[in-house]
């Protein structure tokens, strides 16, 4: 499932962006290449990759299952990207989030943002990831030798997103 759209960035330029929700793995090099618009205007690309982590003391962890709300998940991430684009002069942005069964070390999520300068690219990438974690309808269930368990939402994740509310764009 893919949703693409064009929005206007803080600099007034049209932003090319795409959100993919998929079961299959993704190739970071081709995603990064997609971010280059061909105009050579990108002076910076910032990316984030999230992986399935096994915490110390969770030796019995086996895998996780990611559930989403078809349609709303893409749209809510698309809305987050648009808000980032209103705030920073983004040139291109791409988000991929996997769903279904994932194993330790698997890639879960990738966020990439291009801009003329690193400050906007770093900030927009972090902003998108923070709000994705706080707002996008996705749910993790963990499977271990002891059984299965839905992951509880962390207050620290919503606090991380909230701190952007009062921040300047610098």
């Amino acid at each position, binding site marked *: 499932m893919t949703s693409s759209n064009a929005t206007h960035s803080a600099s007034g330029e049209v932003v090319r962006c795409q959100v993919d929700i998929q079961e299959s793995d993704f190739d970071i090099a081709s995603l990064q290449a997609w971010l280059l618009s061909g105009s050579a205007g990108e002076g910076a690309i910032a990316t984030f990759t*999230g992986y399935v982590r096994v915490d110390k003391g969770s030796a019995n962890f086996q895998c996780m299952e*990611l*559930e*989403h*709300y078809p*349609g*709303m*998940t893409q*749209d809510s991430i698309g809305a987050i990207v648009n808000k980032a684009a209103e705030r920073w002069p983004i040139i291109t942005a791409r988000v991929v*989030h996997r769903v279904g069964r994932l194993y330790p070390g698997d890639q*879960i*999520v990738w966020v990439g943002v291009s801009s003329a300068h690193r400050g906007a690219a770093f900030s927009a990438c972090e902003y998108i*990831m923070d709000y*994705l*974690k*706080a*707002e*996008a*309808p*996705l*749910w*993790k*269930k963990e499977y271990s030798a002891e059984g299965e368990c*839905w*992951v*509880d*939402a962390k207050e620290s*994740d919503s606090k991380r997103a909230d701190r952007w509310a009062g921040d300047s764009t610098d």
Partner: protein
Amino acid sequence: MLHIVFFARVKEQLGCAKLELEWDETLASIDALQEQLCARENGAWREVLSEDNIIRAVNQAVVAGDAVLCDGDEIAFFPPVTGG
């Protein structure tokens, strides 16, 4: 018709992914719908749907308080999100 969907822990605890209800004036708000759903299964759904942190969405947009429901709306109930 109202199209009602449940996700994750809520779906599992109710044992129900989706259901449809004929829309009428007694289902004109999400609070009214939730109260009717709570009465299902001899009140067994109340425990699940009365969780303080349950999130409600109308036509795939999260609503903070009560919201008007119209015929054809899609209403979702789900727990706090844990993606990323």
